[in-house]
C-alpha cells in the first residue's frame, strides 16, 4: 500500500488487532459480581503508564469522581485520549497524571474559557502531544471496536492537524480518492459514567451517547461508574435499553453524583459556580494547592467531595436546574 503522506506525531497505542484479540480472549465472560468501591477499582485496574480513556463529552456525563480517585492514588505517566477533555483534563493536569496525550480538544472548557492549569502543564514540555480531532478520535476508537487496525476518513487532510498526527494518507483503490487512514485506538483502561448498571456491568444511559459505545468496545479494561445500581431483572426486562454489555466491563462502582460538577442529563445540571472557582483558583498556585487538598486529596471519596460542596441540598438545586425549574432562592 503506497503511503502518500503521514503525520509525524507519535502513535501511543499499538493498533495490532491480533494482540487486542489475544487480550480479549483471556477476559472473563462469566456473570460475576463486579461491584466494588471506586477506590478499589482504580487500585486494581489502573496501572502507572496505562493509556486512559474517559467517557462523556466535555463536562457532561463524565466520570469526574474517577479522575479524582486517580489523583488521590497518585497514578502517573498515563497516556490520555483528549477527546473533548475539559474538566477531566483540568483535574488530570492538576495531578500531572499523564505524560502523553492524543489531543482533540483540551485546555478549554468550551464557553467557560481556558484552564490555566491544563495550559501550563501542556506548555511545560513534560507532555508528548499528538494532534487529532474529535471525530478522528471517535473513528480511531471505532476501528478498535471493529477489530481492524485502521479506518479511513475524509477529514484532517491538508492541515497541520494531519502533519502532527500519526495518521497516514493513501489512495482509495475503488475511487482513486485520497483518504486519511486513522489507526485503531484501544485504551488500556477507560471509565464511563452512566445512569444505571447491574452488578455484572450491563449498563444503560439516556441522552446523547457521544462516543461512549465505541470507547467501551475499544477499551481493554472498562470501569463503569453509575448513579444507581439496578437489578439484573430490570436489565432483562428491557434489553433494548442496554448500551454496554457486561462482558466489556471489569468493575461496577455505584457513585451517585459521579459526574459532578459536570452535568448528568435527567439528573443534575453542572455546578457553574464551582467550576468558576476551579478556573479562578488554579491561577494562584498556593490557593490551588489548598483547593485541591480540600476537594480531592483530603477527602475520602466522592461523597466527601459532594459534602464539601453543598451536599444533597446543592444536588437538589442542580436537579431543579437540570429540569429548568425556576430558582427559588
Amino acid at each position: 500500500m503506497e503511503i502518500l503522506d503521514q503525520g509525524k506525531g507519535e502513535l501511543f497505542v499499538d493498533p495490532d488487532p491480533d494482540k487486542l484479540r489475544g487480550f480479549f480472549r483471556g477476559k472473563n465472560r462469566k456473570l460475576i459480581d463486579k461491584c466494588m468501591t471506586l477506590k478499589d477499582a482504580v487500585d486494581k485496574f489502573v496501572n502507572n503508564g496505562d493509556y486512559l480513556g474517559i467517557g462523556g463529552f466535555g463536562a457532561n456525563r463524565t466520570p469526574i469522581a474517577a479522575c479524582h480517585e486517580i489523583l488521590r492514588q497518585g497514578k502517573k505517566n498515563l497516556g490520555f485520549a483528549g477527546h473533548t477533555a475539559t474538566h477531566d483534563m483540568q483535574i488530570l493536569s492538576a495531578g500531572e497524571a499523564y505524560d502523553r496525550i492524543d489531543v482533540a480538544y483540551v485546555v478549554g472548557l468550551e464557553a467557560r474559557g481556558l484552564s490555566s492549569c491544563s495550559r501550563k502543564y501542556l506548555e511545560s514540555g513534560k507532555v508528548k502531544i499528538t494532534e487529532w480531532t474529535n471525530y478522528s478520535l471517535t473513528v480511531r476508537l471505532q476501528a478498535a471496536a471493529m477489530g481492524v487496525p485502521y479506518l479511513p476518513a475524509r477529514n484532517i487532510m491538508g492541515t497541520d492537524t494531519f502533519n502532527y498526527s500519526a495518521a497516514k494518507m493513501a489512495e482509495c483503490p475503488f475511487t482513486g480518492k485520497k483518504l486519511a487512514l486513522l489507526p485503531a485506538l484501544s485504551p488500556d483502561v477507560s471509565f464511563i459514567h452512566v445512569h444505571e448498571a447491574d452488578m455484572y456491568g450491563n449498563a444503560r444511559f439516556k441522552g446523547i451517547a457521544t462516543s461512549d459505545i465505541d470507547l467501551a468496545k475499544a477499551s481493554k479494561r472498562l470501569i463503569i461508574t453509575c448513579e444507581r445500581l439496578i437489578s439484573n431483572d430490570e436489565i432483562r426486562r428491557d434489553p433494548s435499553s442496554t448500551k454496554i454489555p457486561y462482558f466489556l466491563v471489569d468493575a461496577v462502582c455505584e457513585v451517585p453524583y459521579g459526574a459532578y460538577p459536570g452535568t448528568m442529563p435527567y439528573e443534575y445540571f453542572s455546578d457553574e459556580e464551582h467550576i468558576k472557582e476551579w478556573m479562578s483558583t488554579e491561577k494562584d498556585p498556593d490557593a490551588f494547592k489548598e483547593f485541591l487538598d480540600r476537594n480531592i486529596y483530603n477527602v475520602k471519596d466522592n461523597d466527601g467531595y459532594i459534602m464539601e460542596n453543598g451536599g444533597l441540598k446543592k444536588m437538589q438545586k442542580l436537579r431543579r436546574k437540570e429540569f429548568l425549574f425556576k430558582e427559588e432562592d
Partner: protein
Amino acid sequence: MADYNMMEMMISVASRELENGATVGVGTGAPCAAAMLAQKMASPELIIMFEAGGISPELPEMPISVGDSRTFHKALMAGSMGDIMESCSRGFVDYTFLGGAQIDMYGNLNSTVIGDHANPKVRLPGSGGANDFASFCWRMMVMTPQDARRFVEKVDFMTTPGWLEGGDSRAESGLPLDAGPYKIITNMAVMDFEPVSKRMRIISVNPGYSLQDIQDNCGFELLKADKIVETQAPTEEELRILREEVDPYGYVIGR
C-alpha cells in the same frame, strides 16, 4: 440607527446567512446565538445540530457545552457524535460556524498553538470538532473581530482547513469536493472568497468603517469585490429578539 455592539452586529449578519430549511452544525456562544436568532427571524425551520449528538432541540436557553442537556432538550434525536459527524461527512450539513486565534487569506484557522508546536508561546485547545466540521460541511463561516494579529499572512499552525493554499489545492487534498469557507463576518466587514484564487475578498463594509479600516486591521492584502455594499446593521427586531429571547443574560452579547 439602533445602538448595538460588535457581537450583536456579527451575530445578526451571520444569522441572515442561514436560510430556512438549512442545516447548521454549531458550537456554543456566538454561532449558537446566530442560529437561534435565525430561527426566530426568517428561518423557523433551520435545523441545528450539535457535534456531541443533539439534533434539532427546542433550546430553552444558551447551552454552556455542545454536549449539555440543553443541546437535546425536546430534540428530535439524542444521538452520538458519530451520528452527527457521519451526517456531515455524507453531505447533510449545509453550514457551520467556526473560530480561531488566527485566520489566513484562504480561511485556514489556527486553534492549536501560537508559536512552535513543540515549544508553544500559547497552547490552545486544538481542533475539537472544528477540523471535522470544516472538512465536511458545505459552507464554513467564521465570526471574529477584525484584528491584524488575528488575520495573519500565515497561521502558526493550520488546525482547520480553509481553502488551504488557494486555487485548486483543497480539491486536490482529498477533502470532500465543493465544500469550504464561505463567509468571514467581522465587526468591520463581510468577506467571501474570490472563486478562482480562493483569496479572501471584501464584499460588504459595516456601518462606520471604511475599506481602509478593514485593510489596516488585516495582516494580509484583502481583495475587493467589484461591487461592495454596506452591511445591513442589526434591525430593531433582531436586537430585541437577541436581547430578550436568545441571550437575555448577555452570556454572548455581553450586555
